C-alpha cells in the first residue's frame, strides 16, 4: 500500500473517487445517466469510469430522466445498486413520478421484501452563472417525500464519505451535490478516505456560544465566513452543517441551540415552503424555552431562480446572515 501525502483536492475529485472506489469494491454498483460515459459527465464527476469499468458499468443512456430512474428501479429489483446522475437539478423533474410513486415507496410497499438501494446524484443550486433551469435548489421536494434519504456534502471529505455511505445504503438516497462547491479545494488524503456512517448525523463545523447557524451544502462556507466576520461584532457563532436533511439530526441541532439560545437557518432554496420552515419549526418545538428570539431564516427569495447577472442579489450571502443574527433580539442579553 503506497502512502500518499495529504494534498489539495476538489469536491469533484472526491466524488469521482467515491464512485470509483464503490465500483471497484462492489460489482453490483452501476453508474448511468446522460453523458456519464465517454464524456465523463458535464461536470466530469464520472470521468474515466467507463474506461476503467467498461460501458456496462458506466453507461450513457438515452435522454429521458423518468426512463433512467425507472430503469434503475428495475435494476435494483434484480439486486444491482444503481447510481444515476441527473444532469442538473431541474432536469430531475421528469423523473418525479418514478421517485415519489416508486423509489420512495417500494420497500414499504413490499414490507421490506424489495428494497431499492438507488443513489440519485443531483447537482443543485446556483452561483455558477447558469441560465434558467440550471440552478434550482429542489431539496424541499425530496424532504417532503417519506422513504427517501436526502444528503448533501459541504466539504471534500464529506463528498467522499457521504457518497460512499449513500451507495452503501440499502435505501434510496437523493444525493445533492452543491454545484458551486465542485471546484472548492481542501486538503484531502485520497488514500484513507472514509464513508460517513451512519447517514443522518449533523456536524458542528465551528463551535460558538452566541447563536447557532444551521445550514447545509452550498451555504456552509457562507456561514463559516459569516461566523468569522461576526467576531468583529462580538458574536461567537456556532455553525452546524446538517449533511443529511433526511434523516434529520434533531439531537445535534437541538443541543447546539439549547446551548446558544438563538438560531438562524441558512439555505439557498426559496424560503417559503423550503427546508428552513421544517428546521425552524422542529428546533422551536424542541428548544422553545431556551430560545431568546424566534429562529430566523435566511434563504433565497420566493421567486424563480434569478438569471445569472442577478443571482448575486438572490443568493444568501454573509451580510444577510449577519443581518439576521443582528435581529436575534440581543437587547434582552444586556
Amino acid at each position, binding site marked *: 500500500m503506497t502512502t500518499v501525502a495529504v494534498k489539495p483536492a476538489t469536491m469533484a475529485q472526491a466524488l469521482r473517487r467515491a464512485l470509483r472506489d464503490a465500483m471497484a469494491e462492489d460489482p453490483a454498483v452501476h453508474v448511468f445517466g446522460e453523458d456519464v460515459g465517454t464524456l465523463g459527465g458535464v461536470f466530469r464527476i464520472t470521468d474515466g469510469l467507463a474506461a476503467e469499468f467498461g460501458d*456496462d458499468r458506466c453507461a450513457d443512456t438515452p435522454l429521458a430522466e423518468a426512463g433512467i430512474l425507472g430503469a434503475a428501479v428495475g435494476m435494483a429489483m434484480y439486486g444491482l445498486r444503481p447510481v444515476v446522475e441527473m444532469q442538473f437539478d431541474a432536469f430531475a423533474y421528469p423523473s418525479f413520478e418514478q421517485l415519489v410513486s416508486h423509489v420512495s415507496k417500494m420497500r414499504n410497499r413490499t414490507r421490506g421484501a424489495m428494497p431499492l438501494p438507488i443513489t440519485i446524484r443531483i447537482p443543485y443550486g446556483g452561483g455558477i452563472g447558469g441560465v434558467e433551469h440550471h440552478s434550482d435548489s429542489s431539496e424541499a421536494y425530496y424532504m417532503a417525500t417519506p422513504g427517501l434519504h436526502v444528503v448533501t456534502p459541504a466539504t471534500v471529505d464529506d463528498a467522499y464519505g457521504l457518497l460512499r455511505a449513500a451507495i452503501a445504503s440499502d435505501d434510496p438516497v437523493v444525493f445533492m451535490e452543491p454545484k458551486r462547491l465542485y471546484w472548492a479545494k481542501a486538503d484531502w488524503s485520497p488514500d484513507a478516505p472514509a464513508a460517513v456512517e451512519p447517514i443522518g448525523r449533523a456536524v458542528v463545523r465551528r463551535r460558538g456560544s452566541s447563536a447557532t447557524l444551521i445550514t447545509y451544502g452550498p451555504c456552509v462556507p457562507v456561514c463559516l465566513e459569516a461566523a468569522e466576520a461576526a467576531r468583529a461584532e462580538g458574536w461567537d457563532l456556532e455553525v452546524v452543517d446538517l449533511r443529511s436533511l433526511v434523516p434529520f439530526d434533531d439531537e445535534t441541532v437541538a443541543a447546539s441551540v439549547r446551548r446558544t439560545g438563538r438560531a438562524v437557518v441558512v439555505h439557498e432554496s426559496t424560503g417559503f415552503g423550503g427546508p428552513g420552515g421544517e428546521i425552524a419549526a422542529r428546533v422551536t418545538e424542541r428548544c422553545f424555552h431556551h430560545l431568546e428570539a424566534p429562529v430566523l431564516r435566511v434563504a433565497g427569495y420566493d421567486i424563480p431562480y434569478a438569471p445569472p447577472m442577478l443571482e448575486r442579489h438572490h443568493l444568501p450571502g454573509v451580510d444577510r446572515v449577519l443581518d439576521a443574527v443582528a435581529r436575534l433580539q440581543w437587547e434582552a442579553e444586556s
Partner: protein
Amino acid sequence: MQNSRTPVQEPPGAPGRSAETPPSVRALGADPAPLLPDAEPFRVLGTDAAAGADSALLLRLYGELVSGRRFNAQATALTKQGRLAVYPSSTGQEACEVAAALVLREQDWLFPSYRDSLAAVARGLDPVEVLTLLRGDWHTGYDPHLHRVAPLSTPLATQLPHAVGLAHAARLKGDDVVALALVGDGGTSEGDFHEALNFAAVWQAPVVFLVQNNGFAISVPLAKQSAAPSLAHKAVGYGMPGRLVDGNDAVAVHTVLAEAIERARSGGGPTLVEALTYRIDAHTNADDATRYRDAAEVEAWRAHDPIRLIEDELTGRGALDEDGIREAARTADEMAARLRERMNADPVLDPMDLFAHVYAEQTSQLREQAAALRAELEAADGQDTGEGR
C-alpha cells in the same frame, strides 16, 4: 473554437463537392418492413392453424381461463360485500392474463398493471396475497421474488421501465431471464411507455411488452387515445418488432408471446405485442360503464368469448366433453369457495407496520411517531376493555 473563422467568409471551394451524399452519422436501423405488424391480428383458434395446437396446452389454458373468469367474478362479488376496497376486473381479457402467466418460464419476471391480478394468480401466487392491495390491508401482499412477479402497478405505464431495467440487469449478469410487462391501451399514451420502449430497444433488453387493448381507458375510447393504424405500429419507432394478435384467442397470444420471449432470450431484443380484447365488466366495481358504451358492443364481444373459443376447439377435436367442462367449472368453483372463505376472514392488521418498512432502519422521528401511536392504541385498548366494547 473551430468556428471562429467560418467557411462562408472564405471563397467557396471547388464546386461539385457539395452535391455529394452527406455522410451518415446514424446507423440506420434494420429494415423497417419486418418491424411492422400485419394488418390483421394473428389468430389460431377458429382457423386452420388450430389443428396444430397441442391439446395439453389447450387444456391447461382452458382450465386457467375458466378459473380465471370465476376469480374475477368472485373478486367482484367480494367488493359488494365490502371485502375488497375496489376490484378492476379482467373478465373478457382472461386469454391475455392467462397466456401471459403460462408462457413464462420459472426464472422469468412478470410486471403486471393494476388490472392484472389474474395474471399474478395464474403465475402461482396466493390469490389472497394478490388481493391484498385491493382489499386494502397493505399495498402489496406478496413477496415479488417468490414467483418473480413485481407489485401490481397502479400509476399507469410506470412499471414498464422497471421491467426494462430488470431485464437489462439480468442480461448484464449473464442470466437467462426475460421480463414480460403488461400495460393497457390508455397506458401507451404515457411518457413512461415511450421511454421504456426506447431504453429497451437501445439496450436490446430481453423484455416483452404486452398491450392489452381493451378499447377503453376507463371511459375514453381508443379513438380518443390514439390515431395510430394500430398500437403495435408504435414498435417501429423504437426499432423493435410490433405484433398484433387476437387478445381473446389464448393460443394465439401464447404463441406470439412465446416467440417474442424466445427472441428476447436469444439476444434479439424486445418486442411490442398488441392484443385486441375487450373489458366486459365496468372499469371497476365503482364505475358505471353504461355512461360511455353501448350494451350492443359488449354483446358483440361476448360472442367472441375467450373461453368459448378454446372450448369449441377442444370439444371439436374431442379433447373435452361435457364432463370435462363440468370438471373445469367445479375446480373453478372450489377455488372461488376457498377464496371467499379466506377473504371473509378479517385480515390481521398491525398498525405499527405503518412505521416498520419505510426505511431499512427506523429514523428517530419515526420511532417517536411509532411510540405515540402505540401509546394511543394501548390507551384505546384499555378504554375498550374498560368499557366492555
